[in-house]
């Protein structure tokens, strides 16, 4: 019977104040999106931690896999010239 099923899992993202991005806070169970927002308010913002909440059904998130970590992120390792500190410039040079 469908009514016996567990409430689905939601991922909760919270904007701590205007001007900041939403950040993952954790997850919770709720029957629908509306309840997920209300529960997220009670579970994750009891001390003024939030100005806005996003909830996303956990099964809707597509994630990269740990096995792909090297393939995905290692190529950046040898491109240190992307960082400003790579360049040796005279100390007297200002505003740069």
């Amino acid at each position, binding site marked *: 019977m*469908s*009514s*016996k*099923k*567990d*409430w689905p*899992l939601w991922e909760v993202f919270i904007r701590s104040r205007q001007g900041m991005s939403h950040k993952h806070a*954790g*997850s*919770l*169970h709720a*029957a*629908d999106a509306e*309840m997920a927002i209300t529960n997220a308010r*009670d*579970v994750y913002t*009891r*001390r003024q931690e939030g100005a806005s909440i996003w909830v996303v059904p956990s099964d809707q998130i597509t*994630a990269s*896999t*740990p096995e792909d970590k090297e393939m995905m992120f290692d190529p950046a390792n040898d491109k240190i010239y992307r960082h400003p500190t790579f360049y040796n410039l005279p100390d007297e040079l200002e505003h740069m």
Partner: protein
Amino acid sequence: MENINLLERFDAYVAANKKIEPKDWMPDAYRKTLIRQISQHAHSEIVGMLPEGNWITRAPSLKRKAILLAKVQDEAGHGLYLYSAAETLGIDRDELIQQLHDGRAKYSSIFNYPTLTWADMGAIGWLVDGAAIMNQVPLCKCSYGPYARAMVRVCKEESFHQRQGYEIMMTLANGTPEQKQMAQDSLNRWWWPALMMFGPADDNSPNSERSMRWKIKLFSNDELRQRMVDMTVPQAEMLGLTIPDPDLKYKEETGHYDFGEIQWEEFYNVIKGNGPCNKQRIATRKKAYDDGAWVREAANAHAEKKAKRKTKAA
């Protein structure tokens, strides 16, 4: 062959203080141990609401009632953070709850003691939450990411719990002689169970070594217990209350307090289910769960109806 390689990598990774995240490879025993540890911790938060819930309607003032409500609500929140962390290891919430209800999962034995007077709200905050903080602060750095993150949230909130408890004790200790006696009686009853919260003595804690290697336990039971005693004795002195241990003595050489023998028989007896309130606690949990079944079902029906309406409209 493959697994040996993965295991070596895992061990080296954890040894280097790096974090394991849910989708990373981990040994089965690590996963199982973590599920047991985190769920036990979650259950403790949930069952831990009951002894304090006992005093919500009888708090001595509106202020104390509001504070106690907020504290108990925090415990529910802590339980939920921790259940979520356990679920990232691949176990369902429902299964976790069933394990608690049918006795396969444990919770902290401290919550099987009754809360007889208002002073117990003070002693619990001061000693029980104090011991919990002592246990939990190191876990903010444990090797499993979701558990560590949950502990950071918990610890931030737990500090209010301990301070409000101490303030209750302070108010009683500075009150009438009867009130001070009530505070002393409460300290007498909670002191030893609070020290037992750190678990069996090190030479009797078989899985400690492995958990410490895995960095899901960062200090030994006896180490934390000693810290608790050293920290709490001066706090009791400040209240003008006496810790119920004739063997308690400061040792100049070590800089630590020596303390008396813990009654481990009592500890194991409570864990086995024979504490003063074990049966009552689980019965109350089960009743709350069963009585709430219609709410969970109705919410599902409502969600389904709304979803259907939405597809029809589209």
